[in-house]
């Protein structure tokens, strides 16, 4: 099984060879609440013997931390289907996820904004 994200079930001309919602067995709701900005990463462990090729493709894209939106784009699947796949991977321990946490106070928001400002100004 290849772990690369851009090969199986995709054809250059015709796109995906399987209907998107068949990938998730018709499910559109994930067991875990994931946001487009939830970060996911492979744990390198977990028991995923029963998973489908699309799960393995998704897992292959999680070797470094990435957002749900990025995984969806690279899988060329709707975000809602990607969330189902990723939540299956979290359920079997192969992936760890962290949802974005809104700043709880003005002080923590200010710290966040200052880090952003510092990082962006260094790019100028």
């Amino acid at each position, binding site marked *: 099984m290849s772990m690369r994200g851009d090969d199986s079930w995709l054809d250059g001309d015709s796109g995906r060879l399987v209907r998107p919602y068949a990938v998730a067995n018709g499910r559109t709701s994930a067991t875990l609440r994931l946001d*487009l900005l*939830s*970060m996911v990463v492979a744990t390198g462990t977990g028991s995923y013997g029963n998973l489908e090729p699309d799960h393995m493709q998704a897992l292959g894209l999680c070797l470094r*931390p990435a957002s749900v939106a990025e995984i969806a784009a690279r899988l060329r699947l709707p975000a809602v289907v990607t969330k189902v796949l990723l939540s299956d991977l979290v359920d079997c321990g192969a992936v760890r*996820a962290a949802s974005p946490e809104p700043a709880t106070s*003005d002080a923590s*928001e200010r710290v966040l904004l200052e880090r*952003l400002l510092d*990082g962006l100004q260094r790019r*100028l």
Partner: protein
Amino acid sequence: MAYNDVSNPLPTAVKLLVAGGFGVGKTTFIGSVSEIEPLTTEELITEASIGIDSLDGVAGKTTTTVAFDFGRITVNPGLVLYLFGTPGQDRFWFMWDELSTGALGAVVLADTRRLEACFAAVDFFESRGIKFVVAVNEFDGAFRYEAEEIRAALDLKPHVPVSLCDARDPRLSTSTLVTLIKHLLEATMVPSPR
């Protein structure tokens, strides 16, 4: 890094929105500051239909597929900034709460040849209390306006920054983001009447 160690936190992800009318240069803007080629993904949004007879059992809901582009800037190893372009062609993105919820702020790109194309975005961010800056994307051949003329034309509040930009230029686009973050920082200093 060993991400199987739960004590090793995942990076914090934050988002800014890039809005404006269709063809105003949102994806160009995102591409000029993003460290990755802009990616595209799509989402289904469900909306209640209004004023239309619905079939029994369909409960007056329709779904719309909305595609959007986004880019990424790794600010530092613990902080990743995502820039989401709002779908320009589709008026239904306003119903898509997930896109705007949790956004720190927004850049509204304006094209002086079609200023009215960004009215909807300005109205939306004002009504949601999402802070934004207006960046005028200076297209070749377009008449140049002063920032204050744009402010008057868009009826912007005095505190909303207006900057001139070239979405193709990484430095000018990054500088627009810096203006936005400074604007957001100022807002945390003064109590806002929410």
